[in-house]
């Protein structure tokens, strides 16, 4: 590990100023950053520790929605009574993320900055080619071990999967990332790899995530997060779905539907085609299954990850039908 300087920021403003300097990274829970530093991906010259900043760990839920401070721990948010009531999918996504130990350390802001688990990305010593690390160096994953790689949103430059659970739930409910003066939707916060997979987030030097805001909605209140994987815990999704639903007064006709996919795409993936296909329709299993196939429209596999294309629509359909059953 390289030597680096360490600074405890006295305020949000001081942290932002420090983080504007090249080679400086913000340290919160450290569960991703320390890990990436150990495997040689992150080589910061300087760390700005924000863990002690007051007021950044608040979780506030009102009729308008939730505001979650960037330093709130994953575990606290998952277990927050109002989050569970107003945004069950968010709580469930967090419960199924990582391990209890990591959830107790990791922060919500840091969670959004989590990077891919692509083994080629994480191994610079042995695989120098990685467009995400070194733009233009190539992609080692294409043609390699790809069972965990994305099938949606990929490019010739990068097929790395976005591994997180929380952002999948957030994107379904139009959450907003607060970056100090600026606010961006979660959908816009995460960038497609395209030709620039090194650029993962719409965050500029000197900006820092201070909070996440999730607007209240009937669909969010009736939501779930379904995560499928080979083992029961401490594994990234083979495929996951965050789904929220609102019915018309008849209790059968879909007024609003939110569908997002995890474990299959290069960024948290909103499946608007599924939503549009079912809005205004009566919830009916065959229609749901047919519409769910739209979730993987345009998907491209790299061999071993082909199963995700089969699996993801089934996960979406199950989640939608489950939300329908609880009518």
């Amino acid at each position: 590990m390289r030597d680096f300087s360490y600074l405890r920021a006295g305020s949000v403003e001081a942290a932002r100023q420090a983080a504007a300097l090249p080679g400086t990274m913000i340290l919160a829970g450290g569960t991703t950053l320390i890990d990436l530093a150990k495997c040689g991906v992150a080589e910061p010259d300087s760390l700005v520790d924000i863990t002690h900043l007051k007021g950044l760990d608040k979780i506030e839920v009102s009729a308008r929605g939730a505001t979650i401070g960037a330093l709130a721990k994953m575990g606290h948010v998952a277990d927050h009574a109002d989050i569970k009531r107003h945004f069950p999918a968010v709580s469930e996504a967090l419960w199924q993320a990582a391990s209890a130990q990591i959830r107790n350390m990791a922060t919500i802001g840091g969670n959004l900055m989590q990077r891919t688990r692509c083994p080629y990305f994480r191994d610079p010593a042995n695989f120098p080619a990685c467009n995400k690390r070194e733009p233009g160096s190539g992609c080692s994953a294409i043609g390699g071990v790809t069972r965990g790689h994305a099938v949606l949103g990929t490019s010739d430059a990068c097929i790395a999967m976005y591994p997180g659970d929380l952002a999948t739930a957030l994107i379904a409910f139009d959450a907003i990332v607060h970056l100090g003066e600026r606010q961006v939707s979660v959908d816009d916060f995460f960038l497609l790899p395209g030709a620039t997979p090194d650029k993962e987030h719409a965050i500029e030097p000197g900006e820092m995530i201070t909070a996440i805001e999730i607007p209240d909605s009937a669909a969010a209140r009736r939501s779930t997060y379904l995560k499928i994987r080979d083992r029961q815990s401490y594994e990234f999704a083979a495929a996951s779905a965050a789904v929220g639903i609102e019915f018309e007064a008849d209790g059968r006709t879909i007024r609003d539907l939110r569908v997002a996919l995890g474990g299959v795409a290069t960024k948290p993936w909103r499946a608007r085609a599924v939503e549009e296909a079912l809005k205004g329709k009566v919830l009916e299993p065959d229609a749901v299954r047919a519409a769910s196939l739209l979730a993987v429209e345009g998907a491209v596999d790299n061999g071993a990850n082909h199963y995700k294309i089969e699996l993801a629509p089934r996960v979406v359909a199950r989640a939608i039908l489950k939300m329908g059953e609880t009518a």
Partner: protein
Amino acid sequence: MTLELSLNQQPAHLRQGSSIGQPLTRRDGFLKVTGAARYAADNHPPGMLYAVLAVSSIARGRVALLDVEAAKAHAGVVEVMTPENRPPLATDPDAKNNPFMFRLDLLQNDHIRYPNQTIAVVIAETLEAATEGAALLSPRYEAQPARVGLDGAESFVPGGVGIGSPAVHHKGDVEAGLKSAATRIEATYETPAQYHNAMEPHAIVAAWDGDSLSIDTPSQGLAMAQGRIAGLFGIAPENIHIRSPFLGGGFGSKGMISGPQVLGILAARLVGRPVKLVLRREQMYGPVGHRAPTRQTLRMGMDSEGRLTAIGHHARTASSTFDDFFEPAADASHTLYASPAIATSHEAVRLDTGTPLFMRAPGEATGSIALESAIDEAAAACGMDPLEFRQRNYAEVEPMTGKPFSSKALRECYTQASERFGWQRRPLQPRQMPDKDGFLTGWGIGTATFPAIMFQAEARAVLRADGSGLMETGAQDMGQGAWTAFAQIAADGLGLDIDQVDFRAGSSDLPNAGIAGGSGHTATAGMAIHNAGAAVITRLADLATRHEASPLFGAGNEGVLARGGRLYRRDDESRSESYGEILARAGLAEIDGRGTGTPDSASREAYAMHAHGAVFAEVKVDPDFGQIRVTRLVGAFAAGRVINPRLVRSQYYGGMIWGVSFALHEEAVTDRRSGRIQNANLAEYHIPVNADVPSVAALLVHEDDPYVNALGIKGVGEIGITGTAGAVANAVWHATGVRPRRFPIRIEDLLG
């Protein structure tokens, strides 16, 4: 009413010991949970430096360039060890003179023969400096294409498999047996490469004092490690002092001293200061052994009543390009099921990997999952319940050799485990048990087996004038509970309460306890302890029975019993004398005796010796997602005498959970272009987490074995994996109707 309180008809003083059989908690437990147990890497002798390995990116070729100057220029770096300056060795690390000796990579040249092979060692004042120094070496390579996978090279028939078993065995005529069969099956199963992944990585702290060497390192075989190091460095074994009080798991990977551990010793030699070297998790994927992949084809014929007429078991496996260890997978068919004709054979390829090694239940784990799957397929082909099929083909004698078993309570295992599990309610056909939540439930069975192996061990016992005892043997506790179980055997052997016995182990300065492997440690070192105890008691009895002042005078050696720190006349309990009184009268501060543990060749010639078990598994599979969860495991095992039921049950639990791991989780995934393993970390190399094993029961089935050794111990370390892996696979079939033939079973295998 009358109660028959006749637990033991013998007078108290005639009972055989009292510590053996007690479910004592681990004597080292408090040290471990409080962090006071000192593992190898916890040692920091004064002046210690840190060594970090620089390892190869490529699988095959040579190192063309290392920027040693850049590494040495980094602040804190003291030295860089390469083939140029590595201290000389007395013997070639590529020399080999017995099958337990493995070739080591000790910077003997610039050749690379597997990924993660050491190419240099950076020694620095801090771990951080050494780590950065290793990165600064920026190696350049001349690479050749990696040979990867079971089809990656020409196959050949190895000279032997495992340790010295012929690659090909047969009895009877398998082809004729298949031809005459009413029903036949043939199926091919694949198992992946797996890595030991002990919680504690291989670590060493080495300090030289002239030609004397002091080492802290985890070892499953202290005397073998001492001998290997002595040979490599050309120094006397007694000048090498290895301490290994605790291992954070070994599973076979710490059976022989590994290359990286020897490199730590070389580094200390080079710099003339103590050196610590600890492998990073990813560095354990290469130089410290693994379980080789297999592809196994099973052929079975059955007559109209479901009796096997033939078993053919062929396994293809892999070793490294430079050494021999061939996973003896097909040998699993030698011992379990009766058949007039059995043929087993092996072939192998040489790949650009580290040399495979013993990994918990070597041969039996890989062979068992294929054999138990095939037996299940055979039962299904005959339309029989798979338990009934196994009982129909129950081996009354060892199938391959025709030898009687020294003991075999497998029938009781089947009965007890199936009753506990509720097996009789199982529908014959698959996909018949959907549950209320929409999951497909399936029940499967697997038979467990592992040979009752013994090695060679020695122990020394001491009785002291204060009435206490000492037992010494260089036994190795890798988490299985050696500190406790051996102390129990020692207490009974010395006729003392366990609290009166000072039990010493975990050091090469103590008598050779043999290897903690092959499920043979408790039997082997246990017998040495038992015999050492008997030897010192004999001396003590001599002192007493020959002295006129003793109440035991004239009783003769055979006429006394040792219990509770006293010797009693066998025929008159009222006449007894304490150990302290006997020694005081003789004017001795202490006396000692030595004992050995060794297999009895005559009884081993006459009898087949194996532990057995039956494992039943319940799985639930989501029909849409192919997501598998094991919901229940019940195993019953008969492994001779149980020294400590709590520890034994714990061993079975661990083994059974490993069986789940084998069936559903573990796999080293290789990048075929580079030959590198792409999941060399515990986030992506999966083993079950707690949530994957909600319910495990292990039943201890009584078994007396008068032949295996005087204590009747068979060993329990490895058997739990066998049977379980197959039971889970068979349960998946019963749930889904899909027969798994590739392991681990994954979501995509069941998506349909």
